[in-house]
């Protein structure tokens, strides 16, 4: 039984890791390096990311490129919750890893995107070179290949945002204990 499952795992992971389709999420300066990575000199399509999907419903990777502020954080959480499983996050750039140069005393920057959502690969740099982003994609592919189908439930349980909206009129997030689906309108 185990041998069959591990063979299925191998094929399943190989197929998934060689066709990762990211979401177009470019907030700030790192977004330009992401665009340059998808251009012809540092081609990201040869690693499987043939298209960047515009909607989170069809993407399986979100590369948070750029500074996340308090006003933008609810939108990021909403996008993350809209992505279907299995989903991955690459925190690109110093601003997403730890707050970057704004970590010291900025009043409106979230100090690292891992205070909001669980992150798989951290990529430092300000901005990281396109080759570094390709290295991060390769690391993510290696991580994908170590996953098993049997542990699917554990991965899904771990993919919860760590904050939620205070109430439906507010735009500021507070810490969340358990997941709650919050609807907020236009």
């Amino acid at each position, binding site marked *: 039984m185990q041998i069959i499952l591990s063979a299925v795992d191998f094929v399943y992971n190989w197929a998934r890791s060689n066709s990762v389709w990211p979401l177009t999420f470019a907030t700030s300066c790192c977004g330009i390096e992401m665009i340059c990575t998808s*251009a012809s000199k540092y081609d990201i399509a040869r690693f499987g990311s043939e298209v960047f999907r515009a909607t989170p419903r069809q993407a399986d990777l979100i590369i948070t490129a750029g500074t996340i502020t308090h006003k933008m954080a609810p939108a990021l959480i909403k996008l993350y919750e809209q992505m279907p499983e299995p989903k991955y996050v690459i925190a690109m750039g110093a601003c997403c890893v730890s707050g970057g140069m704004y970590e010291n005393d900025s009043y409106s920057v979230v100090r690292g995107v891992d205070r909001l959502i669980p992150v798989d690969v951290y990529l430092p740099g300000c901005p990281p070179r396109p080759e570094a982003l390709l290295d991060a994609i390769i690391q993510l592919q290696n991580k994908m290949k170590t996953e098993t189908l049997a542990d699917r439930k554990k991965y899904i349980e771990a993919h919860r945002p760590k904050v939620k909206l205070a109430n439906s009129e507010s735009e500021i997030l507070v810490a969340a204990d358990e997941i709650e689906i919050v609807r907020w309108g236009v």
Partner: protein
Amino acid sequence: MITEELKINIGPQHPSTHGVLRLVADLDGEYIRDIEAKIGYLHRGMEKLAESRNYHQYLPMVDRIDYLSGFFNSASFCYAVEGLAGIKVPKRAEYLRLITMELNRISSHLLWLGTFLLDLGATSPLFYCLREREEIVKILENLTGQRMMYNYYCFGGVRKDMPDGWLGSVRDFCESFPAKIDDYEKLITENPIFLERTKGVGVISQEMALDFGITGANLRASGVKFDARKNMPYSVYKDFNFDIPIHQEGDCYARYQVRLLEMRESCHLIQKAITRIPGGASEKLKVKRTNCGCNKPECAFCGDETKVFFKKTNPLVLKIPTSEITTFVESSRGLSTCYVRANGTNMPDRVKWRTPSFSATQILPELCKGGLYADIMAILGSLDIVLPEVDR
């Protein structure tokens, strides 16, 4: 048939909002009744951060305000502090500043062109423009070490002299570039789909532009000849004779044409500056300096004009007495001003950035009202808005 009004959210994450801009549109079918622009999704508090840092510690952060034209913001802050503290800048450094600023203008316009056409649906110009942009970025990386946020200017000049062979690579780029612009023109300018989508769309009249404080290529496409390089000269622009292209129609097509002409003018400017830089290429300057070896300030090779910074300032000691100054710089998007107020310590009291994209985002709802839903992307693309500048 009963129709109702539809409220649509063109949210902060959208492939063509050039950053994080949120538009809330009231639609009646395909026509826009009312549209509101909500900004602030990238507000990092740049102005507050200046009050707890040295002048020198704040300088690397200035590049990130508009990351596509980092040299211009850096230049306006450097000119402000140099004006307040009375620091002189040698001529070679000014010429290096001019060459790098014009190269940055070309690279910013190239990215604008690629993303503008990507918004309209054409995917191939993006790859062509990024191919040229990679060449410029490689040239600037040889000079400064960074691809995007250069951090090259310092108070009193620039940080390092150019490496050997750099002027030759700039000259080669400038010789090959006008042919590439001709290629883009062949592909885009007479394209019937492009003409349909941009001619007569988003017309800004002269009075409207002046009333809303629009500057840059958007203003020049409406017939007003205003360029800070000519009207409020800074650096060594006074020594050069260059054209300021204007168009009269004020629609998206005119803005596109003005920016293409600006790219050609920048190319000419760089070619002229290369021939006039004091000292010439660095490999020749090194040879002349070792031949001469006199170290007198009047000497053409060892003197003050061929230095790269006049006086290296000490971050612990650069204390500026109470005064205020405003500098005006023509960035690739428009007129960018920096207001610095000093209070006698080594930290500024208040720094304020007036960025051109702020005014351009303000006029966007006025232009879109009454038009078609599909025109929003054409107008948004042609105004050349970069959101970190808007939100700071």
